[in-house]
């Protein structure tokens, strides 16, 4: 799955947790999930769990720590998909 496809799917996953939907119009890899989209940290955990379900992967604690921006989240998901396939 390409980074663009992952970002598109991730965009859908984060929507329920963003109160001001207009913020979603300008999402870029460097967009900060907490500071730019005002997602609270409890919901960041929801997004990690939603991503695990949607992509059929497991995101360990060390990887979850990196998921502060959209781009970092895409990289973590992409790495988890590759790891899943090689298992």
């Amino acid at each position, binding site marked *: 799955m390409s980074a663009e496809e992952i970002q598109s799917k991730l965009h859908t996953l984060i929507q329920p947790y963003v*109160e*001001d939907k207009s913020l979603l119009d300008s999402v870029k890899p460097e967009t900060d999930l907490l*500071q730019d989209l*005002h997602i*609270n*940290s*409890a919901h*960041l*955990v*929801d997004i*990690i*769990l939603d991503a695990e379900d949607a992509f059929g992967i497991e995101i360990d*604690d060390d990887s*979850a*720590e990196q*998921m*502060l921006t959209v781009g970092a989240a895409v990289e973590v998901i992409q790495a988890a998909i590759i790891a899943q396939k090689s298992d």
Partner: protein
Amino acid sequence: MIKESLLRESQLLLGNDIVDLRGVSKRARTLDDRYLHKIFTQPEILRIRKAPKPVTCLAAHWAIKEAAYKVWLKERGKRYFAPKHFEVHSFTKGWVSVPGGMYSFRLQTGSHWIHALCGKEITPSFAAVQILPLAGSKAEQSDSLRTAALTYVATHFSVPLESLELSRSPLNIPKIRSKAFKTSFDLTLSHDGGFGAFAIACR
């Protein structure tokens, strides 16, 4: 009421977090095992599971972790998303371990909310805390909370409200500055659901 002299002598770094318990109860995942294991350590999960009110106990643990993280962010100046590394060490004694140290915390509860205040090195009992109900959108709630914090400072330190400024650092840490006198206020703000809270100490 806090004595200003005590506040001036303190070197508090404060962090707080309020949780609207009505929102926690509604969350489908609240006591879900996967959710718990992403956030809490094994001893914390055991404590939550054994509690007479597990949802309230979970909210308390979450609030403590968030409050401790806010203090840690002020102290270390770098962001870090690792909830398990901020572990409620002693729920009864009020200690939370953080990467590289230990902070103390104080809990307050209302009918529908729970609030944690965390401080570095000494007990956060010196801080002035206000809890308030908030209405409107998230942005309106933030405005109301900021105004309440500034009004508190203006009233209790007898300075004009318009002389106070509330700004945020690049790490999103709120700060009150006063043009009227040289006092640096350590401020922490939190809102969730229908409640907001602020705590203030000055150095």
